[in-house]
């Protein structure tokens, strides 16, 4: 398990039972937190450029923001001064270059995108629709 996933595991334990994450199993929170933290790390590598998050991951981020100690735990993973900027809802075709870069960074850093989590990343769904294999 990488340092990133260790951190995600600690954070997800802290978020378990959050009032902002009702109706989610511990396992779902764990997976979603891991994907969010991985996504933030990749975005930091990409100069803060954050690809669209699924509503599930976005909600985990909101829950994380309301827990300062957990936030600090994630921030220790990231380069100081990183300023996340969400790409606007441009047509996915306009983002293709970033999408492929993102998938490649994910694969290099964390291995293939695990089965069952691609739906947390709208970018992956788009690439799959184009017939681009995520591996």
């Amino acid at each position, binding site marked *: 398990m990488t340092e990133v996933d260790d951190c995600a595991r600690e954070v997800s334990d802290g978020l378990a039972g959050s*009032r*902002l994450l009702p109706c989610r199993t511990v396992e779902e929170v764990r997976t979603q937190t891991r994907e969010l933290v991985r996504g933030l790390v990749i975005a930091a590598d990409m100069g803060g450029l*954050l690809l669209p*998050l699924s509503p599930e*991951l*976005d*909600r*985990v*981020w*909101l*829950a*994380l*923001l*309301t827990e300062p100690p957990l936030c600090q735990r994630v921030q220790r993973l990231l380069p100081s001064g990183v*300023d*996340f*900027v*969400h790409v*606007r*809802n441009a047509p996915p075709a306009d983002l293709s270059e970033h999408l492929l870069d993102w998938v490649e960074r994910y694969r290099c850093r964390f291995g293939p995108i695990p089965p069952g989590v691609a739906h947390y990343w709208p970018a992956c769904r788009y690439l799959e629709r184009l017939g681009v294999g995520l591996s």
Partner: protein
Amino acid sequence: MRIDYLSRGTGWAHAARTALVAPALARRPGVEEVTIAASGSAVDYFAMTGLPYHDLRVPDELDHSGYAAYRIREHLRSRDGADRVVVSDELCLASLVCEAPCVLIVCSFRHYDAGPEAFGTADRILLAGWSEVEPVPEAIRSKVTAIGPIVRVVGEDRPTARRVLDLPKDALVVTASFGLFYPTKRDYFRDALSAVLGAWRHAPADAVLVIPLTSATVRELLGGVALPDNARCVGPTGRMDRYHRASNTVLTVGGSTTSHAVRNGIPTVVINPPAGSVESRYAAFLAGRCDHLTRTEGTESAQDLWDMIDHSAHTAELAPPDLRWGTADDVYHAARGT
């Protein structure tokens, strides 16, 4: 007290309200500083009007997201100094991530079910509307004050407004004041504009229909329908108060422009607000209390609608209805009380 004022986009209603309240707060005793941070389309409003602002860089479609909460949090953390209060105009998630007392201003509770936690965390909530129209959720009732819509009272008279806007001195002037065009309102705008243009065929040739949309937006909405020569597309403008004052009657779709027209005693016709919408409820509420507001049912012929517009346009301006109207003082007292 230093006030960090957050202003939502998704149209210009929140920004216009901010532009009215924030400078007034800055003049109140004990207020050292008021700074504005804007989300989405509110940025365009402040850029146009010249009011200093910080761009939160949150697109309208994400303004109730975790991403928006992150941007708000980072902005607030960058602010220095003690004794800070956050006043958030409909950026509801601000209360969850700010580390200072928070006053939330809302027009409605439409976001409540999606995020009751944000309302529960706010120190004070000001409903810039009427509780008869917008029932307050029981769980937060103790912290909510219904202050009424906050709108600018225009002191200027009609001849002056027409002269400044280069509108004819004596002709009939009608403004189709539907608010800032926003993609989710496309069908609504198209239907209302089509109905108005159908009715406008009966208008006298020297009358002027002011449409605060760009010609490109109107063309996109109406397809191949040609605009009459006496329709003026003036584009989105920060001078809506003045266009209202210059008009014999204002046509709205029931949103914040309705409150402004009614508050200023300007005859108003509300065009087909969607059934069950907040706009529809406000229009019904005002129609029962205000002699100079009428509303369509959506079944009128073009002639019927023109008759309503013409009748409204020949109604004298009246005193506003005896209702509660919000002021900057309401916001000031709420901020002081946190």
